[in-house]
Every structure is written in structure tokens, then in C-alpha cells.
């Protein structure tokens, strides 16, 4: 029969020079005081940082805590390391109550954690025996991984500093020590009780305490007491040392992750405003734009720096890093963390006035990002990168610090509304092609013509000779489906999607204002676009635009409704030798989670053989970036597009289907650069659909349809 449910207090066990209770109490007060002091120092930069309103939508935030924190949602993406982490995390959660109980019994011998006094107590104890064992084993495995298998993503390239292995091993070792001390404390207690014949119970079968108990069962009572008190002391010291050491490195996430995830960004695809506490209309009064010094970051972004666990998953999935550009998201964070620890020290004065660019970040590093979002998709702690990159770019734009290669297109966007400097009146010239005249001319919604749907074409699809084929295919499909649609023509300007993401906020706002006005005047009720960047801008960056759909969504719903049908495979034999693979454009896939619609459309084409690339859906690999990124001249070892084309070949495909004009540019170029012409080709989803759809809607029927839609 157990007299004390819970943990046997070490104060009863041995005679001490200093009474055990006072010693333990002093240690615990000192440990807690240290931790509180360090954390309050770590709070200083957060309190001085920029505003960031993350206190809304508490239920959604709690849901995310359950999914991403308690549920460890992102971890299984890396099966082995992720599983290991789930075990450690679960072990820590289970052990938390026991750890506190162990600490408290040093001071108050009869303490029992509330809820653990009844029948659940012994069960909980058995569970924690196993938890300590599992965590210990995980530590051993983790150390072996770090030392023997050395996963590439933990490596630190020389340009980013020294390896972090020693620190990681030290921390893993400390946790292992904590587990051993905890188990030994329990084992020695059971062994002592058994010798006194007070209890016939023993720790959970095959657990670490169980094994230790067998090992020490026959030692003398004095030794057992010594072990018991020694284990207690080691446990307490290791516990408080870890508690106070974690805020200096990668394990701070043990404390911060809950907050990081609760306050994580809820609105995918958006970019943070210049200043959360200044409305757009008052931006002229803001003295400085973007992030120039550390104090310009928001508190959540600084919390991100604390929370990063240095796991390297972001960098391993980052296309910029993969092609040797000077950017790895992991080090964006690590460098900022090193900076904040150095400039907001635990002892001494804070000082953070140095500019970040040229000090810890290079200009090319910040311009290298395509904002594809692969890093954010991967991060188990939901660390944000795009908003930080955009804020750093805003700072550089504000200082006039912009590569010459980007200045021309920005200037052209300002004076002509497109990055190529082409005449506004020629924006709709793609409609003049004879092939379009056959299927039905495209209306320009200039006040004389009205329509239900606006086809927002955007700059590249309007002006680029090759991409105009996408515009024409889209127009023919919409006509074929009997949609009453039109374009803005000369009244359309660039959506400004990349303008905003390159940090030129005021220029973006000018473009948005112009387009919003033009869309309003056109009187349309919905928008369709074939450009995922325009789609993302209209959906997330514009405020008063009608509902917008990407053409792949329209196609999927029409196919489901039976309105979009394809010729049978016999009519186009050439398709039989082809193996298609779908490349997810970042701004359709990751940023807007449209993964299935384009695939469904492809699969509804009879006889079409489709394979998946290893990196697909939310792990899609960016083709090289769109908009202004086409003008930027990065330092890189190879092109992202070339890497992507090779991935398609590896998957066994010989045709890449995409749904974005920028992907088309990059992949088409990459096929040439990789010398794969003739072996690989690329086609836009609209072009493929246009080639093979059954056109049942005649002009007459179209008019009827128009009449009904207008009526309804």
C-alpha cells in the first residue's frame, strides 16, 4: 500500500549539514528568479518593437494552437525527425507535472499535484516512467543523428558562421541527464522502499527507472539514500540550468512556441501593412518606411527570432538557397537572433541603432527572395519570412537603395502602368489576332460595353508575345463556355502584386487605386484571371474588388457541372506518348491552396497520363519568381527553373503543365538552358484546355446564355 502517492521526498532521507528543505528552497527561488530576470530582459526588445495586432480571433488562434502546437501538425513532413520530436514533445508534456512535483516535494514532502491524488496517480506515474525513458532514448538517437548521420540541413555554410552542433549536443545531453536523474530518483526510492519492505511496487516494466532499480536493488540503504538525494540535486540543478540557459539559444522555443503559434499569421497570401498602427491614408506622415534597424521589426517578428529551433527545414525547401543565391531563411532568423542577443544583452545596456542592411544582411540576400512561401509552409513553429523580407525591402526602397536592374521597370510601372514601358493603348492588342475573331471578339469594357465577368489579364499576359497565347486561350475558353466577359484594355494597369512585394508600397497603392476605380466603373460582378499573381493581389491586396477566381477554378467547376468536356483520346493520338506533370505556381498553390482544381481539370481529359513530381502541391519548387523578379539579376549558381525542369524529368514527365505566365517564362527558358528542347515541353493549363475542349456553345446559344445571365 502506498503511503505517499506521488513522489517520496528527499528531505526525509538523509541527514544534511544544511537542512534539505532550506537548501532546496533557496535553489528553487534562485532558479526561478534567474529565469524571470532573463525572460524580462528578453521581453525588452518586444516591448520597444512596432505594433502588431494579433489579439483578434481567439478561437481560430486556439484552434491553431491545438493543431500546430499540441498536434505538432507540421512535424511528420519530416518523418523521422518529426516523429522523434513528437515523442520528445509528448514526453515533455507528460513529464511537466512530475518535474514540478519532484521540485516541490524537496520543500513540501507531502505535496501531490492536484488531480493526481486519486486512482489516476499510479497510472500517471507509470506513464511518466515510460515518458522519461522515451525522451532519454530520443536524446540518444538525436545525438547519434547529429554526430554520425549529420543531416545536411543542420550544416552551417561558412558565410553564415560556425556550426551549431556543439550547442545542440550540449542541450540534448542536458535533457538526457535530466531524464536519468529523474529516473534514478524514482528507482532509488522504490529500491529503498522495497528494502524496508514498505512497498512491493516497482517502476513501470522495462522503463529506465525499472532498469535502474534492478541495477541498484542490492546496494546498501545508505548508498540508496545517497543516490536518492544526489539524483534529486542533479535533477534540480539540471532543470534550473536548462530553464535559464534555454533563452540563450535554440531551445527557447520550449517556452516561446506556444505564444508564437497562438499569435501566428492567420491571413495567407497577404502582406503586412507598412505600419499596423497607421492607416494607408496617413502613410505620408510616417517618417521612415520598412525595417532599417532592429527596432523597426514588430514584436511578433522578434518573437519569431526567439522561437526558431534552427531545424533548417525552411532553408532546405528554399529555392533561393537551393540554387546558391545568398539567402537562406534559417539564417535570416539566426542572424537576427544573434543580433538581438548581442544588442539587448541580459547584462548591460541595449543598443540597436545600426542599420541591418550592410551589417547583418546583404542587399542581394534580401532581393533574392521570390516570396514563394516554401519556408513558411515548412516551419513547424510558423515563423514568418515574407513579411520580414518585404519590410526590409521597404526600408531599402525608402533609402533609394535599389538595384539598377529594378529601377527601370519600377519607373515604367509608374509612368506606363506596366514594367516594360509599353504604351497603355496597346494593352489590349492581343485581342486583335485573327484566331480570336473566329471564336468571337473580346469586348473592351470601356463604358460602351458591359459584362458580367471581367477577365483581368495583367501586364505580362497582355504584352509578352508568348504569353498573349495564354490570354487568347483564356478568352476562347470563356467564350466557349458561354461566359459574358470583357477586359479593361487600356484602362487596366499592372495589378502591382510584385510592386508591393518588392517594397514599393506607394507605387502599389497608386496602381491599386487606379485598377479598383476601373473595375468599379466596368460594373462587373466577378473577376477571372489566368495569372496567379494578379489573382492573389485582387483577392488579398485589393479591398473593394468583386470576387475573383483563377481560371483553373472556373474550369474545374465547369468540368464538374458537365459544361466543360473534352474530345476523346482517339481524336488526338499524339497525347498517348506524353506524360504530363502539373507544376503548382506558388501564388495559386501555397498562397491560396488551389491544388486540386487544376489537377481535376487535367484528369478530366480522357487518356491524359499524369505523374506527380516529388516536390508538388505545398512543397512545390518555385520556377524562379514572377513580376519584377524577372528583371532582377541574382547571384546564383544555377536557375531555379532548370532545377525544376530536372525534377519533372526525374518524375518521368515530358510535358510540364502550369497555370501561371511567369512559370511559363521561367520554365520555357530553363528547358533551353538545360538543353532539354525536344525532350521536355511546357504548356499552360488554358492552352491545353483550349486545344482539346469540345465547343458545343455556338454563337446563337451564347447570346441566349448572355440574355439569361443578364436577366439573372
Amino acid at each position, binding site marked *: 500500500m502506498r503511503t505517499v502517492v506521488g513522489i517520496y521526498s528527499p528531505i526525509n532521507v538523509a541527514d544534511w549539514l544544511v537542512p534539505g528543505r532550506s537548501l532546496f528552497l533557496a535553489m528553487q527561488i534562485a532558479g526561478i528568479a534567474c529565469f524571470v530576470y532573463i525572460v524580462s530582459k528578453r521581453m525588452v526588445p518586444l516591448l520597444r518593437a512596432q505594433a502588431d495586432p494579433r489579439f483578434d480571433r481567439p478561437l481560430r488562434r486556439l484552434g491553431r494552437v491545438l493543431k500546430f502546437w499540441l498536434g505538432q501538425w507540421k512535424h511528420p513532413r519530416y518523418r523521422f525527425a518529426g516523429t522523434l520530436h513528437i515523442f520528445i514533445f509528448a514526453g515533455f508534456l507528460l513529464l511537466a507535472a512530475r518535474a514540478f512535483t519532484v521540485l516541490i516535494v524537496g520543500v513540501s514532502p507531502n505535496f501531490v499535484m492536484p488531480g493526481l491524488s486519486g486512482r489516476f496517480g499510479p497510472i500517471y506515474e507509470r506513464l511518466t516512467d515510460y515518458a522519461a525513458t522515451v525522451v532519454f532514448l530520443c536524446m540518444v538517437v538525436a545525438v547519434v543523428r547529429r554526430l554520425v548521420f549529420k543531416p545536411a540541413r543542420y550544416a552551417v555554410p561558412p558565410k553564415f558562421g560556425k556550426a551549431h552542433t556543439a550547442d545542440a549536443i550540449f542541450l540534448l545531453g542536458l535533457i538526457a541527464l535530466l531524464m536519468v536523474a529523474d529516473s534514478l530518483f524514482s528507482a532509488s526510492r522504490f529500491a529503498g522502499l522495497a528494502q524496508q519492505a514498505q512497498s512491493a511496487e516497482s517502476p513501470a516494466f522495462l522503463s529506465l527507472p525499472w532498469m535502474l532499480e534492478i541495477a541498484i536493488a542490492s546496494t546498501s540503504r545508505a548508498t540508496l539514500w545517497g543516490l536518492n538525494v544526489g539524483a534529486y540535486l542533479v535533477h534540480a540543478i539540471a532543470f534550473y540550468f536548462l530553464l535559464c540557459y534555454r533563452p540563450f539559444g535554440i531551445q527557447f522555443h520550449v517556452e516561446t512556441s506556444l505564444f508564437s503559434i497562438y499569435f501566428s499569421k492567420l491571413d495567407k497570401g497577404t502582406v503586412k501593412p507598412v505600419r499596423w498602427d497607421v492607416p494607408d491614408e496617413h502613410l505620408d506622415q510616417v517618417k521612415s518606411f520598412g525595417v532599417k534597424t532592429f527596432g523597426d521589426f514588430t514584436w511578433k517578428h522578434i518573437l519569431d527570432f526567439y522561437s526558431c529551433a534552427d531545424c533548417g527545414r525552411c532553408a532546405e525547401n528554399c529555392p533561393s538557397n537551393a540554387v546558391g543565391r545568398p539567402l537562406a531563411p534559417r539564417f535570416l532568423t539566426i542572424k537576427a537572433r544573434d543580433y538581438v542577443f548581442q544588442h539587448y544583452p541580459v547584462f548591460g545596456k541595449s543598443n540597436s541603432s545600426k542599420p541591418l542592411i550592410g551589417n547583418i544582411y546583404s542587399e542581394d540576400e534580401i532581393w533574392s527572395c521570390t516570396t514563394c512561401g516554401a519556408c513558411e509552409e515548412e516551419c513547424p513553429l510558423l515563423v514568418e519570412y515574407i513579411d520580414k523580407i518585404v519590410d526590409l525591402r521597404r526600408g531599402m526602397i525608402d533609402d533609394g537603395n535599389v538595384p539598377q536592374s529594378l*529601377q527601370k521597370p519600377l519607373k515604367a510601372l509608374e509612368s506606363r502602368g506596366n514594367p516594360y514601358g509599353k504604351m497603355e493603348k496597346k494593352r489590349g492588342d492581343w485581342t486583335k489576332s485573327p484566331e480570336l475573331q473566329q471564336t468571337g471578339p473580346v469586348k473592351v469594357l470601356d463604358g460602351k460595353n458591359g459584362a458580367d465577368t471581367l477577365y483581368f489579364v495583367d501586364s505580362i499576359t497582355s504584352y509578352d508575345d508568348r504569353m498573349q497565347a495564354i490570354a487568347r486561350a483564356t478568352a476562347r475558353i470563356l467564350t466557349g463556355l458561354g461566359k459574358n466577359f470583357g477586359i479593361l484594355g487600356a484602362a487596366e494597369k499592372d495589378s502591382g502584386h510584385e510592386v508591393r512585394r518588392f517594397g514599393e508600397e506607394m507605387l502599389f497603392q497608386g496602381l491599386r487605386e487606379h485598377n479598383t476605380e476601373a473595375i468599379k466603373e466596368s460594373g462587373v460582378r466577378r473577376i477571372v484571371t489566368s495569372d496567379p499573381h494578379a489573382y492573389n493581389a485582387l483577392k488579398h491586396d485589393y479591398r473593394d474588388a468583386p470576387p475573383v477566381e483563377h481560371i483553373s477554378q472556373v474550369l474545374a467547376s465547369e468540368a464538374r457541372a458537365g459544361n466543360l468536356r473534352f474530345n476523346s483520346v482517339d481524336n488526338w493520338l499524339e497525347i498517348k506518348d506524353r506524360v504530363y506533370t502539373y507544376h503548382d505556381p506558388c501564388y495559386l498553390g501555397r498562397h491560396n491552396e488551389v491544388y486540386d482544381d487544376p489537377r481535376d481539370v487535367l484528369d478530366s481529359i480522357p487518356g491524359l497520363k499524369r505523374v506527380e513530381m516529388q516536390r508538388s502541391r505545398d512543397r512545390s519548387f518555385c520556377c524562379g519568381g514572377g513580376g519584377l523578379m524577372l528583371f532582377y539579376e541574382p547571384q546564383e549558381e544555377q536557375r531555379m527553373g532548370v532545377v525544376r525542369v530536372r525534377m519533372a524529368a526525374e518524375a518521368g514527365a515530358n510535358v510540364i503543365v502550369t497555370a501561371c505566365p511567369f512559370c511559363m517564362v521561367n520554365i520555357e527558358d530553363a528547358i533551353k538552358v538545360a538543353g532539354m528542347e525536344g525532350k521536355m515541353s511546357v504548356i499552360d493549363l488554358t492552352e491545353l484546355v483550349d486545344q482539346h475542349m469540345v465547343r458545343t456553345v455556338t454563337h446563337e446559344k451564347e447570346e441566349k446564355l448572355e440574355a439569361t445571365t443578364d436577366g439573372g
Partner: protein
Amino acid sequence: MEILVCARRVPDTSENEIELNSAGNDIERDELVYSVNEADNYAVEEALQIRDRVGGNVTVVTVDSEDGEEILRRQLAMGANQAALVSDEAFNGSDGKGIATILKAFVEKGHYDLILTGVQADDGAAQVGGMLAAMLDYPFASLVNSIVIEDRKLKVSREIEGGNREVNEIDLPCVLSIQTGINEPRYVGMRGIRQVASVPIPTLAAGDLGVTQASVGEVAAKVKRVDYFVPASSKGAEILHGSREENAARILELVAAKGGLN
């Protein structure tokens, strides 16, 4: 150091489709968009960098209609201390010498240690800098692609055909024509332009500068444009249509045939 930069507004060739007007004596100007002349932008950047190193003021001046204000605002947003628009109906039709005459009068209204111009305007003839220096009796160095300040002297260098560089010493005050590539001009964003939207830009007319009507404008112009045309594109380009390997072989063959491979 007091620095004056003479800048000009030109139709940006990368943002316009240049077409002849129906009369055939000028380009169609209705739908043109304008920028500051590229070389002038480099000159302004150089002036700002010199000012930031040694102190002083940068003034930007342009001879134009009231539309010239657009580029002056941009240069103010870039960081120039002040700008002045020199504008008068009487200036219309001035040749290079006429513009230099107007600028000379402007220079004499102030005290400038250093006067910079772009090496030439996109639609210009690279005359004004040299003429202005001669009229002021200032030393002149052209095609400058580097400036080092040494008290009241400058060391300026220029690139010689073939990539060599020549360094010259020149006394202040002087006039320099600045080559593109001397620096990396900073970006001027929408925000910068909006911030200087209310900065006053004085407009000076012929009378303010004491320029006589007879010395400028069409009446004084001794160089007159008589024609403007787009040359017919000539033949001579051969486009290869083979595979990559075939094309590479053909190019080797052609280059060898012209004596390009020894």
C-alpha cells in the same frame, strides 16, 4: 561646395514608341512619357555624393516649359537642396548655343564651385556643357567617370577608347560633363516624390536672368533642324533556323570565313 547640375527632360526611349509626326519634322509627342535624361541623373547622383562627403548644396536647373517641373521634383526627391525652372516663350527653338547662353545667365546669378551636366541628352548633341564652360571662361572636362576632390582642385578621369583611363587635374570652379556609369543612382520612389510635392520651385524668365530676346530662341539659332527621319532598316542580318548544334557549326563557319578565328 556649391554644385549646380543642369538637367533635361527627355522622352524615355525605353518607355515610348518613337514615331514621326505627319509633317515629318519631329516625333509624335502626344502620348510620350518623359524622364530626366539618364546621364543627367548620374550627374545629380554624383553631386549628391560629393555634397554628402564635403558638405554644401546641390541645385538642379532645367530650361524647359512648365512641364520641366516634373523632373525637378524627382531630383528634389533624390536629395537635391533646391531646384529652379528657367522658362520663357522666348527660349523656344533655341539651339545648343542658345541653351548655353540661358544657363550662363543663370550661373552668374549664383555662386557655384562646380557645374555638372550629363554627357549628352538622349535627343541632344552634347554641346551645352562645353559651350557653357567657354562662355563662363571656366575649365571644362568631358566624359568624366570619376571625381576625386583635392581642396580647390579636382582629379577627374575619363575612359579612352579601348578601356584605358586618363586622369586630369582641373581647377575649381569648372564645368564637367558626366558619363553614365560613374555611380549607381539611387531610386526615387512615389513616396519621395510625394514628400517634396509642396516644396516651392522658382521659375525664372528671360527678364529675371537679364537674357536679351535676340540672343536666344529661334531668332538666334544658327543651327536649324531641317529634317527628321527614321532610316530604313537595311538587310544583312542572317537568321539561322537549324538546331543548336547546326547553328553553332554554322556560326563558326561564318566567323572563320570573315577572318575572325585565327
